[in-house]
C-alpha cells in the first residue's frame, strides 16, 4: 500500500471515530438536560450511547497508531505545533471515560450527579480539542503556517481563527449527531426532548460549517488549492443541516436528510481536514519500504476489526429493550 492508501486508511479511522465516538460526545451532554433529575432516566440516556463507547474510541487509538507508524513526521510536527491542545485532548478523553465508567458504581446521588457534570464538561471539551487540533493541522500543513511565520497578517489571523472555528464545528456536529442517536434509541418520552435539542443545534452547526467553508476558501486563496474541496464539502454539509432543520420543523423526522445529517456533520471536520492537509501529509509519509512491509498485517487486522465491529453493531445497536444491558 502506498502513501495514498495509508492516508485513506488514516482518514477512514478518524471518520469512524468521529461517527461512533461522536455519538457518545453528543449524547452524554444530554444526560442532565433530557434525563432531568431522575437517576433512572439519566441512566437510560446513557444506555442509548453506551455501546458506542468501547466500540468507538478505539478508532482514534488505531488512527494514532497509523499516524505513528506511517506518518511519524506529521505526528511530530502536529504535536509540536499543538502540544497543549494534545494534552487537553488527552485530559478530556480520560476524564470523560472515567466519568462514564465510575458514575453508576456507587449509589450515592451526590457521587452520580457530580460525575454527570464532569462527564458533560469533558464530553464538550473532547470534540473541541479534537476540532482545534484539526484546525492546527489546517494551519501547519498548508501555506497558512509558513506565511504566518513570515509575518503575513491575513495568515496570522487565520492561524488563530481556524482552530477556533473547527473546534466549534466539531462540538456542534457532535451535539446534533449524539442527540439523533439518543432520539433514535430512547423511549419516546425521552426521545422527544432529545429531538428538541437537536432541532435547536442544527442552525448553529450549519452556520459554523459555513464559516469553516469561508476559512477553507481563504486558505485556498492563499495558495493551498486542495482547500477548495473542503470548502465545497462544508457548504454541502451546511445545506444538509439546514434541510434537516426544515424537515424537523415540518414534523417529519424519519427522512433520509434528518437521519444522515448527524453522521455527515460528525465526519465533516475530518473530511474537510483530509482535503486541506492531504497533499502536504502525503509528502511526509514514511519511506516506501516501511509502508510496504506493514501493509498486509495492518490491512488484515483492519478487515478482522471491521467484521467484529459489524457483528457488534448488529447485536448492540437497536432500540432499548428488556434485553439491553445497562452498565454505565
Amino acid at each position, binding site marked *: 500500500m502506498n502513501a495514498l492508501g495509508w492516508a485513506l486508511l488514516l482518514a477512514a479511522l478518524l471518520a469512524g471515530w468521529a461517527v461512533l465516538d461522536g455519538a457518545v460526545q453528543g449524547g452524554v451532554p444530554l444526560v442532565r438536560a433530557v*434525563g*432531568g*433529575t*431522575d*437517576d*433512572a*432516566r439519566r*441512566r*437510560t440516556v446513557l444506555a442509548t450511547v453506551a*455501546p458506542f463507547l*468501547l*466500540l468507538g474510541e*478505539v478508532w482514534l*487509538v488505531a488512527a*494514532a*497508531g497509523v499516524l*505513528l*507508524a*506511517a506518518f*511519524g513526521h506529521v505526528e511530530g510536527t502536529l*504535536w*509540536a505545533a499543538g*502540544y497543549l491542545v*494534545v494534552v487537553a485532548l*488527552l*485530559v478530556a*478523553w*480520560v*476524564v470523560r*471515560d*472515567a466519568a462514564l*465508567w465510575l458514575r453508576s*458504581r*456507587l*449509589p450515592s*446521588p451526590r457521587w452520580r450527579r457530580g460525575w454527570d457534570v464532569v462527564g458533560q464538561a469533558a464530553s464538550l471539551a473532547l470534540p473541541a480539542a479534537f476540532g482545534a487540533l484539526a484546525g492546527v493541522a489546517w494551519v501547519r500543513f498548508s501555506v497558512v503556517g509558513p506565511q504566518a511565520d513570515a509575518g503575513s497578517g491575513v495568515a496570522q489571523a487565520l492561524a488563530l481563527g481556524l482552530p477556533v472555528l473547527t473546534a466549534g464545528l466539531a462540538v456542534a456536529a457532535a451535539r446534533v449527531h449524539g442527540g439523533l442517536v439518543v432520539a433514535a434509541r430512547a*423511549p419516546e*418520552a425521552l426521545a422527544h426532548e432529545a429531538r428538541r435539542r437537536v432541532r435547536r443545534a442544527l442552525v448553529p452547526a450549519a452556520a459554523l460549517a459555513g464559516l469553516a467553508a469561508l476559512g477553507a476558501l481563504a486558505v485556498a486563496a492563499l495558495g493551498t488549492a486542495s482547500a477548495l474541496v473542503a470548502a465545497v464539502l462544508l457548504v454541502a454539509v451546511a445545506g444538509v443541516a439546514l434541510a434537516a432543520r426544515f424537515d424537523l420543523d415540518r414534523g417529519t423526522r424519519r427522512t433520509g436528510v434528518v437521519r444522515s445529517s448527524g453522521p455527515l456533520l460528525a465526519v465533516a471536520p475530518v473530511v474537510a481536514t483530509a482535503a486541506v492537509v492531504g497533499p502536504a501529509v502525503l509528502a511526509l509519509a*514514511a*519511506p516506501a*519500504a*516501511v509502508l510496504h*512491509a*506493514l501493509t498486509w*498485517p*495492518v490491512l*488484515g*487486522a483492519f478487515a478482522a476489526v471491521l467484521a*467484529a465491529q459489524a*457483528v*457488534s453493531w448488529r*447485536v*448492540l445497536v437497536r432500540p432499548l*429493550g*428488556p*434485553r*439491553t*444491558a*445497562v*452498565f454505565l
Partner: protein
Amino acid sequence: MTAVDAARLQFALLAGTHFLFVLVTLGLGPVVAILQTRWATARDAGRAATLETATRFWGQLYLVNYALGIAAGIVMELQLGLNFPGLLDVAGGVFGAPLVIETMAAFFLESTFLGLWVFGWHVLPRWAHTAAFWAVVVTGYLSAFTVMVANGFLRNPVGYEMVDGVARVTDAAALITNPAALVSALHVVGACLMAGAFLLVGVSAWHLRRAPSRLPGVVAAGLPGAVMSPENDVWRRSMRIGLAAGTVGAFVATGAGYAQFAYLQDVPHGDPPVVGIAYVVMQGVGLLAFVVGCVLLLLLPGNVLFRLWRPLRTALYGTLTVLLPVPFLTALLGWAAREIGRQPWAIAGVLRTEDAVSDASATAVITSLVVLVGVMLTLAVVDWSVMARLARRGTTRLALGAAPAHVLRDGDDEASTGSTGGATPADQDQILTFGGTR
C-alpha cells in the same frame, strides 16, 4: 528541572500507573474467562448460579479496572510522539511496526469484543458470549506481547540496519523472537497472573474471614455443617483459582526472570543500585509466593484450608488480605529496574534519551507533566477506592449482567432518587423496563 528530566519523569509516572491497571487486566482476564466457561458448561443449576455470580463479580472488578487502564494506555500511546519524537525519527520504522500492530490488531479487537461482552450480555447466546470474553483475553495478551516487542527492541536492538541515521527492519522474525521481547513477555505474564491471583485471594480471604462458614439458619436449627451459604461458595472457588493461578504465575515469573539474565549480562555499563535491589526483591517475592502457594495448594483437597483451627484460619485470611499490594509494588520495582537499567540510552547503543526528547520548552513539558500526571493519578486513586468499595460490597447488587429494570432501580434501596422528573408511575415503568419485561 530540564525538559529531559520532566519528559522522563512524566513517562515513568504515567507508564507506572498504566502498568498497575495492566497487571489486573491480564491477571484477572483468564480467571474471568475460565469462570464463565465453567458457568456456561455447568449442568447443575446451583453450581451454574454460583459460577454466574463469580463471573459477574470478578467481571465487574475487571471492567472498573479496565476503564482506567484503557485511559492510561491512550495517554501512553501519545506520550512517545509528544515527548520523545526523536525516538520516532530514528527508529519509527522499526519501533512503530509493533505499535501499529498493537493498536490495529490487538487493542482494536480487544475493545470491540469487550463492548460486545458487556453490552451484549442478554442478547448473545451463552457460547458466543463466552467466546467474546476469550477473544478479549487473547487479544489482550497479544497486545501486551507487541508492546514487549517494541520495548525489547529498545533494550536489545536486533533485526535492523541503520541507513542514513534511520533504523530499518531487516529481519522481522529476529525482532519478534528477540529474547528481550519473548522471555521478558513471559516474565511479565507471570507477574500479571500473580497480581490477579493476589487480588482474587486477598478479596476472597477478606470475605471468608467475616462470613460464617455455614448458613445462620442451618446453625440455629442444629443441623450438621455441610450446608454452606452460596456467597461463601463463591469465595472458596475464587480462593482455589487464585491460589492455582498465583503459584503458576510465581513459577513463570521467577523462571523467565532468571532466563532474562542471559541477555541482560551483555549491557556493558554498571547498573545503578536500585536495579540490584529490585532484582533481590523480585527473587524473594517470587520464590516465597511459589513456596507458600504450593503449601496452600496442598491444603485444598478435602477443603482442609477452610477448616483449619479457627484462630489460625482467621490469621491466615487476614495475612492474605494484607499482602494484596505486594505483587503490584514488586512489578513496579521490576519495571523501574528495566527502564533505569537501560539509561542513558533510549535504544541501547543507538540513541541516547537526551537526543530523543522533543524540543518543546521545559515549561510546556512541566505543564503537561503536572496536568496529565495529576489527572491520571487522581482518577487512578478514585478508581481503586471504587474497586475497594465494590470488592467489600461482595456479590449483592451486581450491575454487570443484571436486567435493565433491576439496574435502573439500584439506587432506590440505599438512596432516595428524589422526584421522578414529573413522570407518572406508568410512564416511569415504561422507561425503567424499556417498554417490556424479560
